[in-house]
């Protein structure tokens, strides 16, 4: 390639620093990525193939604006500096993707596996939270697809890259996206990418992360050649959800996609409803009817709390704390306790989490703060403890009617009749703990 950068090339930047090229890390459609030295640290440099950028002036202006505005959250590999033009091309500097993060594509294919299903949900939660903040700041991302997400399969932490196309919602950057993730109105060229098409792409990504196959590729897509016309119909004008309750003509193929139906049936009702809404005919064709990030956040946080590990190691969803037979070993999986909230019931077992967005309607950036965590005891395999992860103290009533304050990092043993008042956004949220029927400790 003509504009390939040689090692040790030095280029100056917008903020008066320099980058020294170390080595090439990879290439993509829009440009190549190099490891560079920048202000004494190892960073990544994206170097553009300028001929692939349709409107260079507005692209550069937008990139500069993103750099000055700064990253919306730490979940973005955000541009931090831009280089000058060298032999007709230029690039921007961002953080290197740390060790342990994998491309979401690899996780979807199954080349790399999540540590657990709960880590999958964590990854989804982190993605929707980052987008809630991004959209809340008036941005749109434009090109949501699995290639732009790095996920740590051990923790579910997420880094979102390729933020050079991020722009004020409603502005056109000349990017259309990746066909299978594009919203129908983008596939049919009725609209340019915006916040609303982001929401469709997000729903596709979440469906794929949680269930595997593509939500619009059912019976209509098997035993056929997926040529471009077919794909346009599948994702565009004739898009139909594989689990559409009213029209089963694109239902999963019983042989080619046999796993999907049983996995779908294990999902909790609140999440199924959200997917059904997100891919309903109404939402596919009216961008304003798509679920908000906040809707995904509360459903996923609840789902996260509902997944338990069976004694055999398999994970199952105990919706509202109801005991469920394990789909692998057929043993009944039942949380030792349930936490009764005013509006929902959650199973309580090791590693159960309660997030701030489950206690009301907090600020966007606080929604995923961990408020409570269920831990085990080192000296007693049957004891469960509820740990206060919040800086605010809780008021705790034990079953002996003793009241005390539980401060940050303190633990109270979970017992029948324990009542806890956690500070929510609109006054204390009262939670009562009850022993679950059919206790089997896992």
């Amino acid at each position, binding site marked *: 390639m003509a504009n390939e950068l040689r090692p040790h090339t030095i280029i100056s930047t917008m903020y008066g620093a320099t980058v020294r090229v170390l080595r090439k890390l990879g290439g993509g459609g829009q440009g190549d990525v190099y490891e560079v030295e920048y202000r004494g640290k190892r960073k990544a440099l994206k170097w553009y193939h300028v001929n692939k950028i349709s409107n260079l002036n507005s692209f550069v202006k937008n990139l500069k604006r993103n750099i000055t505005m700064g990253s919306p959250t730490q979940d973005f590999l955000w541009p931090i500096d831009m280089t000058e033009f060298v032999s007709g091309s230029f690039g921007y500097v961002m953080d290197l993707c740390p060790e342990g993060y994998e491309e979401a594509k690899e996780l979807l294919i199954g080349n790399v596996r999540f540590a657990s299903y709960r880590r999958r949900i964590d990854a989804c939660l982190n993605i929707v939270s980052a987008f809630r903040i991004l959209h809340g700041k008036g941005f749109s991302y434009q090109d949501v697809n699995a290639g732009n997400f790095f996920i740590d399969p051990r923790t579910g932490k997420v880094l979102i890259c390729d933020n050079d196309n991020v722009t004020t*919602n409603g502005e056109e950057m000349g990017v259309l996206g990746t066909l299978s993730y594009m919203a129908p109105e983008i596939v049919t060229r009725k609209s340019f990418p915006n916040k609303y098409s982001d929401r469709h792409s997000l729903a596709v990504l979440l469906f794929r992360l949680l269930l595997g196959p593509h939500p619009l590729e059912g019976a209509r897509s098997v035993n056929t050649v997926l040529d471009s016309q077919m794909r346009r119909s599948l994702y565009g004008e004739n898009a139909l959800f594989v689990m559409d309750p009213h029209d089963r003509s694109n239902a999963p193929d019983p042989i080619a996609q046999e796993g999907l139906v049983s996995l779908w049936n294990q999902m909790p009702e609140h999440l199924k409803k959200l997917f059904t809404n997100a891919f309903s005919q109404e939402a596919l064709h009216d961008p*304003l009817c798509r679920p908000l990030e906040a809707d995904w956040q509360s459903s996923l946080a609840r789902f996260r709390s509902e997944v338990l590990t069976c004694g055999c190691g398999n994970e199952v969803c105990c919706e509202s704390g109801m005991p469920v037979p394990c789909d692998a070993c057929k043993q009944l999986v039942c949380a030792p306790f349930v936490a009764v909230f005013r509006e929902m019931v959650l199973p309580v077992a090791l590693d159960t989490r309660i997030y701030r967005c489950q206690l009301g*309607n907090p600020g*966007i950036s606080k929604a995923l703060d961990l408020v409570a965590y269920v831990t085990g*005891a*080192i000296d007693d395999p049957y004891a469960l403890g509820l740990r206060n992860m919040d800086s605010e103290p809780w008021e705790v009533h034990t079953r002996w009617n003793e009241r005390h304050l539980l401060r940050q990092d303190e633990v109270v043993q979970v017992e029948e009749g324990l009542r806890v008042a956690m500070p929510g956004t609109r006054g*204390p949220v009262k939670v009562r703990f009850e022993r679950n029927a059919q206790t089997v400790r896992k």
Partner: protein
Amino acid sequence: MKPRGLARRILPVFYVLDTSGSMRGYAVECLNSAMEETVRTLKNMAAHNGDVQIRIAVLSFDNEARWMDPGVPVDVEDFVWEPLTAELGNQTCMGAAVRELNSKLSEDAFLCSLTGSLMPVIVFMTDGFASDGYEAALEDALRNHLFRDATRVGFAVGSSADVKMIARLTGNSRAVVRAGDLDTFVSLIKLVSETATQAASLSHVGDVGDRGGKAVEDAMIANDDEVTEWIASEDVHRGKVPIWDMNDPI
């Protein structure tokens, strides 16, 4: 025989939002995102508040004032937020907005309901100074008890917003939220909508008082990290306490 559910009282919530030229770009997009979430919050409230039906109407104003589709207050359950836009060079005709709102605030227009309507909630937002004389329009509106006794709150966003105007529109400087930047506005509009709607749905005839100021105060307390009233007693433990595993879970 099945008893029929109680007819739900209507609670109209009006938003009067600035889409003048200075709101163009990020500002109006932030406003759109914030309002989408606000509508979601009100939907949740309506779902858990059996005796009130929340109806929303949105009036945006620049050179003129116009109602968002469908142009009448609709049940929040059926309401879809149509993204607002702001065009460069457009003015801030708050007077026109107040006049338009006032013309619809009557039992024959937007507050017509068989089951009875509660006093409305009105939320104002601007990031600038009125470019028309809003004072005369406000004086007119204050003669309408449905405006005067409404739960009125207002947002002055950014450093160049006319705080005094918002105070006069809400009738009370305590009912004004000064949001230094859009981020603050985004996090507060949801809370204030919630507290104001709560206050209005609990209000009774004759109980005029200062609901706007109270709503803003409640929202500020909720937004504050400090929780004010907590009993302070020492930890009490009984019997043997297990040694908890404190390894960082995340």
